[in-house]
């Protein structure tokens, strides 16, 4: 049983720069994940425009029958979102932590080109640790 299904990071123009699958039921191929990322980017932008109140920063949580989607947008426009089991708690903290890892291991890496797909070994290692820790604490609750 996996509480977290998958993780996406999209850059400010809507391109998918990182995708990690944690054993979701309906597996997606690369094209599907790219499509979902750009679709989410547009929906997020539209939701800001449609909002009846001013100062809306876009969708933070999308709840469906079979999954929850938690989204976190950094001030620079990079979006992080996780797809997880319905009712999973504390995803905001996990996303903030992932953002922290991104600033450390991706942005401080001289071999990373901005807005390009993330291929950083250290980032993946610490991300795996963070998700593993989250899973353990979810099981403990």
């Amino acid at each position: 049983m996996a509480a977290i299904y998958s993780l996406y990071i999209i850059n400010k123009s809507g391109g998918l720069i990182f995708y990690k699958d944690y054993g979701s039921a309906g597996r997606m191929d690369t094209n599907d994940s790219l499509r979902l990322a750009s679709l989410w980017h547009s929906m997020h932008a539209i939701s800001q425009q449609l909002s009846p109140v001013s100062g809306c920063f876009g969708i933070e949580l999308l709840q469906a029958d079979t999954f929850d989607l938690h989204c976190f947008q950094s001030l620079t426009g990079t979006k992080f979102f996780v797809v997880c089991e319905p009712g999973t708690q504390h995803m905001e903290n996990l996303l903030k932590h992932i953002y922290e890892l991104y600033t450390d291991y991706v942005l401080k890496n001289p071999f990373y080109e901005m807005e390009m797909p993330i291929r950083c070994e250290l980032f993946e290692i610490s991300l795996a640790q963070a998700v593993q820790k989250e899973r353990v604490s979810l099981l403990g609750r």
Partner: protein
Amino acid sequence: MIGVGKAKQYANVLDRPIGKGKQEVSLSAFAFLFSELVQYNQLQVDNIAELERRLEDAGYAVGARVLELLCHREKEGDTAIGYSFFHTQHRHCDMMAQWASHRARVADSLEKGTEHEDEYMISEKELLVNRFISIPKDMGAFNCGAFVAGIVRGVLDNAGFPAVVTAHFVPVDGQHRPRTTILIKFAEEGTLDFQSLKKQRYRYCNEKQDWINRRENWSNGFGMLTYLLAS
């Protein structure tokens, strides 16, 4: 100490000397600066060996200046660092246990090469400059520790011990991340100096002593250097 006891009033804020402030540097600031240094040099070169050489040269300039600074900052309590190095060196000990008692954190280990008389290794589990850096697969054995190797070479060279210094990744059993080893190979004349070192009485450089012996310079520098790399 420079500037002590001269509490002058400066009319213009720009004339005022920079305050001493905290003796700490933000790790993030350092990481970003180093990242920029690597990126800049990457644009100037077309192969990895060249990039490594440029980083080492950048480090060399730092090492040369750092040696001078560390000698200036040297205090009595620290002399044992350099001294213990001589001690262990001519007893051919592998580790420098004495260092640990003088500094909260020193390099993980300093070892003498087993194969060659004139080779020394500084090993670090995680080099500060490599903390956030993942080397792409296509760059092979490239190590940003080349910068640190350059610092070591700068210190040694300016203290009168010319050496060839290189940084290598060494895989560790059971660890995902390899450790970085800085290999120091002294040039011929450097080894000769080693032999005469033990005859010398080690003195620390105080302000009254205007002539600092090159060899003593080296001993201060080396101990402080390893401290610097580890802190």
